[in-house]
Every structure is written in structure tokens, then in C-alpha cells.
């Protein structure tokens, strides 16, 4: 338990660092963000009003303190485009992103675990070779290409699945496949390597020598130990899925935080840009923290 306490302490500077990075985003905008948001035709009075609303007329230190104070109250500012609090706008989109990431993860696991295990058992034979080539192609394929190619095949040629949007379970299939493919390629390699490590262990030889059937050796003895490192990778990759979702969502017009972020960038809605980046980054940090802690709970060796 000491490990988790220390990790929790280490979390604070990390979160503060992430918040600071996000705060400075808006201050990196070349030129006057207020003028960019309102356009060149805006009157001086309007410019001044918005500048005061956003607090950009205050000294930097005060802006930073107000930014952190606002976060403490759950106030991320107002979206300029939607004319609503940023948190409410993001809250409406977050479930869609979480659903997509979860579906992509489920798909990746369904493919990667059996393929990885099979590749390890049939090491250096045809299934192994095919799995390795497949995973190499999978990690090399950009998801903004895979998505459109899947649309051409399944939506236009075969007419099985909708092209975009979020209407019913069928509309989730292509985005989840697109987002999950690269992850499943990574997990195939991990599962295979991890199984190979375990398959060489003495206790497996013992189990085999005692006459356990091969399938029982794999299922009862090997798999349980082989999956531990895979669990860690799954956790760490779930955070990556959330940010990878930005691109996939935009391919399929999936109404999540990623689509919102790009809309906000296009509309120069900087408070919303800040909010989207902050929410995704914080999810990423917390998922990684949970994974670390979970790993420490499962594996006593890393507990100290």
C-alpha cells in the first residue's frame, strides 16, 4: 500500500504540470487571440469586453491563479461558440468518446489474445509468421486511412454499415475497428512475447510432466502468468486510445471530445480547445495512475 501512497503524491506535480502546459496553450497563440476569435471587423468595445470576460487583460500570474481556482470549482470557462460552460459542452461529448475507446479496446483484446497465444504456441511456424506480419502491418497503418478504406468496403461496396455519425450499435463497429487495430497489433506482440517467456518456465514443465493435457497447461498455468504484463500495457494503451480517438472520431464524425476539439480549433473557440485538451490529458494521467497502482496490487514484486 506504501507504493500507492507514494504514487498518489507523485501525481500532484504531474497534474500541476499538465494544467500549466494547458494554461500556456492559449498564451502561445501568435497575435491577439481575442481578435482572432471575433474577426477583423469587431469593434474595439467588443474586443475589450471579450478580453475582460476571458481575463486576458490581467497580469499573467493572476490569470494563472484564476485558471487554477476556476478548475477547483469545476469551472473551465465558457465556450465562445456554443455559448455554454465548457464543462457542460465536454460533458455531453465525453460518453461517446469513452464508449468508442471501450469498444476499440474490446475489439483489440478479442483479436489479440487468441492470436498472440496461438503465435506463441506455434512459434516460428505459419500462424506465428502470419501473426507477426499482420501486427507489423497493423501498427504501420494510419487510422485515418484504415477508416476510409473500411467505409469503402463495408458501407459502399457491401452496404452493411453506416458511413458516419452515431445512430445505433451498427455505427460503432467501423470506428471501433479503426481505433482498435493498431492497439491489437501491439497487444499481439506483447501477448506472444509474454507467453513465450512463461512457456519456458520450470513449473510448466512440471505440469506437463505430471501429465496435464496441453490445453490445461496453457489455460490454467501459462495464461494466468503471461497476462500480467499484458494488463499493464492495456492500461497504458487505454490512455493512448483516448487521444487516438481524436483522429478516428473526425474520420467518422463520431460526436465525441475529439470531434469537438477539432471543431473548437476551427472555430477558434480557445476556452473549448483548452477544456478538451485538459479533459483528455487528465483522463490519460489518471488511467495511467490506476494502471500503475493496479499492477502494484497484482504483482507483489513491484509493491515497494
Amino acid at each position, binding site marked *: 500500500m506504501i507504493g500507492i501512497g507514494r504514487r498518489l503524491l507523485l501525481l500532484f506535480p504531474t497534474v500541476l504540470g499538465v494544467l500549466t502546459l494547458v494554461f500556456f496553450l492559449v498564451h502561445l497563440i501568435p497575435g491577439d487571440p481575442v481578435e482572432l476569435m471575433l474577426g477583423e471587423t469587431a469593434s474595439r468595445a467588443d474586443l475589450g469586453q471579450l478580453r475582460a470576460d476571458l481575463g486576458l487583460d490581467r497580469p499573467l500570474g493572476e490569470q494563472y491563479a484564476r485558471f487554477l481556482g476556476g478548475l477547483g470549482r469545476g469551472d473551465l470557462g465558457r465556450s465562445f461558440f456554443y455559448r455554454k460552460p465548457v464543462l457542460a459542452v465536454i460533458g455531453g461529448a465525453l460518453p461517446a468518446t469513452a464508449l468508442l475507446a471501450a469498444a476499440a479496446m474490446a475489439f483489440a483484446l478479442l483479436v489479440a489474445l487468441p492470436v498472440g497465444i496461438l503465435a506463441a504456441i506455434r512459434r516460428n511456424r505459419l500462424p506465428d509468421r502470419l501473426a507477426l506480419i499482420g501486427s507489423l502491418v497493423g501498427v504501420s497503418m494510419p487510422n485515418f486511412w484504415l477508416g476510409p478504406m473500411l467505409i469503402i468496403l463495408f458501407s459502399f461496396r457491401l452496404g452493411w454499415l453506416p458511413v458516419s455519425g452515431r445512430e445505433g450499435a451498427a455505427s460503432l463497429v467501423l470506428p471501433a475497428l479503426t481505433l482498435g487495430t493498431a492497439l491489437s497489433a501491439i497487444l499481439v506482440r506483447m501477448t506472444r512475447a509474454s507467453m513465450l517467456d512463461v512457456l519456458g518456465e520450470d513449473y510448466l514443465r512440471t505440469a506437463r510432466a505430471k501429465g496435464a493435457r496441453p490445453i490445461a497447461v496453457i489455460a490454467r498455468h501459462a495464461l494466468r502468468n503471461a497476462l500480467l504484463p499484458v494488463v499493464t500495457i492495456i492500461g497504458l494503451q487505454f490512455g493512448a486510445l483516448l*487521444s487516438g480517438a481524436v483522429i478516428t472520431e473526425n474520420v467518422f464524425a463520431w460526436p465525441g471530445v475529439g470531434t469537438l476539439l477539432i471543431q473548437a*480549433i476551427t472555430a477558434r473557440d480557445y476556452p473549448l*480547445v483548452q477544456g478538451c485538451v485538459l479533459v483528455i490529458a487528465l483522463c490519460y*494521467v489518471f488511467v495511467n495512475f490506476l494502471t500503475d497502482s493496479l499492477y502494484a496490487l497484482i504483482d507483489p514484486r513491484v509493491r515497494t
Partner: protein
Amino acid sequence: MRKQPGGFTPTALIGAFLLAAMVALALLAPVITTDTPLQTDLEGALRGPTDGHPFGQDRLGRDVFAQVAYGTRASLLIAVSVVSLTVLAGVAAGAAAGYVGGALDLGIMRVVDIFLAFPGILLAIALAGVLGPNLGNLVIALSVMGWVGYARLVRAQVLSLREREYVVAARAVGAGPWRVVARHILPNALSPVIVQATFSAAGVIIAESSLSFLGLGPQSVPTWGGLLAQGAAYLLYAPHIAFFPGLFIMLTVLALNLVGDSLRDMLDPKSRP
């Protein structure tokens, strides 16, 4: 794939060949394309592959092959710039942290931890989004995160090499810290950096195309990602516009991954499976 001693695996050769082909395409783009990438031909708009246009034409009738060829230039140029910048910055930061130690080490590694806690592609999207879409900003957005991995890698290498006998000997005969680091430590720490650079070049190409796909890349030169974004709007009538740039992204990334894998096996015998 079993490797002969001193030889290359077939996959490594495929990777090297593909990579050489991409470099050749980038260098020879003006010679092997008959059209300039921006030359429009409205009568041929959205037309599929023909003899004169092997990859077809886009929505303004521009030659897709010419755009893919010039896009190769943009992508490789960006990848080389970003990797060079990040390697230089990361090696400098990592060597300083590892060799000097103390407060400097603590400070640098704290910054590294914060950057590592931030999802890379997200920061790049946000930076490119607020800085505005052009080539320079794209390189900045992709470089801001990239140095961190090298810094950690080099720091660990320097820490393990710092107390080796030959380094201690160099110090004993009066070599200054610059000389010790530059002549004795870094040359022995660079193998993993080279491997890492190959893999991150693949990552940069995907990230750069992602940003261009989202409309955050350079607007004045053809890019793979930009072309793919245009093609995504015409998937039903002109699937070739999206297909070819994506294929080239995949082949380039695949080539870099294959080369990276074999470099790792050659330079770092410990990680050999």
C-alpha cells in the same frame, strides 16, 4: 526469420529497399512526374487511374501521383527535421542530466516526467491548432514532445557509462567534462538512440500526416495527409484519391519499422529474441 551471421534478414532488406525507393521518389519528384502537383484540369476531375495519370486525378483534376510524389518530399523533410531537432535536444538534455546530476538532473527529469504524462499526439494537435497551420509550426508542434524519450534514454546510458574504467581514466588524465562526454561517453551511448530515432521517424510520419489530415498541416505544399483528407470527402466516387496517399504512408512507416527492428537486433545484441 532466422538470421545468417553477419547477414541481413529478408525483412530488413525489404524495409531498406522500400525506404530507398521513398527517398528516390522524394528526390526525383520533379523528374518523374509529368504534371506539377498543383496543375488543374477540371475536365478530368475525380477521374480514376488512366495512362497519363496512373493514380488518377483529384477534385480539381490535379494529378494524384504528382501530389503523392511531392507529398513524399514534405513528409520525409518534416520527419528528418523533427528527428534531428529532437535527437539534438534530447541527447543534450539527457547527457547534461546524467553527467552533471544533482539539481540539474532533478529539474530536467521532472520536466521529462510531465511531458511523458501528456499524450503526445494531443499536445501536437493542440499546439498546431493554436499556432496556425504551416510547415514551421508543424515541425515545432511535433518536436516539443519528441526530445523527451531521447533525454531519458541518454541519461540512463550516461549514468551507466559514467563510472566505467575508461571514463574514469580519461578524467584522471585531466580531460574536462565536455571532452569526456563528447569523446568517451556519447559515442558509446548512441546505438539505442539510432534505433529509437528510426522508430520515432515512423511515429513522426504518422503524426505529421494525422495533423495534415485534420487540416493542421502546411496548406501551400501537397502532403499525404492533406490529400487523404480531400479524398475522404469523395470516397464513393473517387476512392483512389484517399487510397494512394494512405498506401504510401503505410509503406514508409512499415519500411522504417522493419529497418528499426533489424537495427535493434544488430546494434543491441541483448534485446535479440
